[in-house]
């Protein structure tokens, strides 16, 4: 799981151009939006594209999105639960 979380952190940094951040500076339990990384709605769309492009996973409902995109850890759990990590 730790390996997947680190991989995901690197992918998020690249996808969202968070060039001033390192995987170590991202708390996998911190909220991705508003607090924590302070991401916005466009970033949310970019994360949805990342899940589909890198892991072949689609979020079917807005509720799923809220749950899955809560933190890096919740994203990793979603990938692991779908056996794509």
């Amino acid at each position, binding site marked *: 799981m730790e390996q997947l979380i680190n991989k995901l952190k690197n992918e998020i940094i690249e996808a*969202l*151009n*968070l*060039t*001033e951040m390192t995987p170590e500076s991202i708390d996998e339990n911190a909220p991705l939006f508003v607090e924590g990384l302070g991401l916005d709605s*466009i*970033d949310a*769309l*970019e994360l949805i*594209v990342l899940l*589909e*492009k890198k892991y072949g996973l689609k979020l079917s409902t807005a509720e799923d999105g809220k749950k899955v995109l809560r933190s890096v850890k919740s994203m990793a759990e979603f990938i692991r639960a779908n056996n794509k990590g």
Partner: protein
Amino acid sequence: MEIKYHIRDYCIIRNQRISLNGNLIFTGSETIPQSFFTEAYKHFNINYPKFHKMDNLSKLGFLACELLLEHKNIPGIVKGEDVGIILYNAASSADTDRIHQKSIQDRSAYFPSPSVFVYTLANIVIGEICIRHKLFGESTFFISERFNAELLHSYVSLLLDDCVIQSCITGWLELDGDHYDGVLYLIEKTPSGNGGFVIFEPEKLSEIYLQGT
């Protein structure tokens, strides 16, 4: 001829160099626009993480405005609604349009990037500048075949004459592939500061535009 308005400051970004009011303030080593803009961002110790998410046209406009508006005591920019932004270029957002087009070229690998797509309009750079400096005045992005001092002067003068705005950030902001050319002027209705301003007229705009070319 009656002198009505003034060019308070101007910033030129081209050929790996940045000048402010005719003084060279930065020479970069990077030749690729994105790398050069990042080099300048770091050099001037700017702290605005959103910069890294912008497309190159927005980065060019953002940097020019950062330097142009570093004089915080200009009366004209105290109230954001009094400041307009009128920009021109020839390539519109073609540079970002191509990146987006490439991402949707292959139907079997169809992954358009939302963060690229949002910049497929030239006037997004105006939005980025307005958010950064809290400006709410009249704004327009014109597409023009080449830099046209008469056109720029006449439209900005009209806005100032009609009191729609009191100050205006205006100029040429071109970016296409490896070519970038940013020349922004801060035009004031009422002179502020210690004087020494340039008269706002087409000849002066052209003269400044041609500096360093």
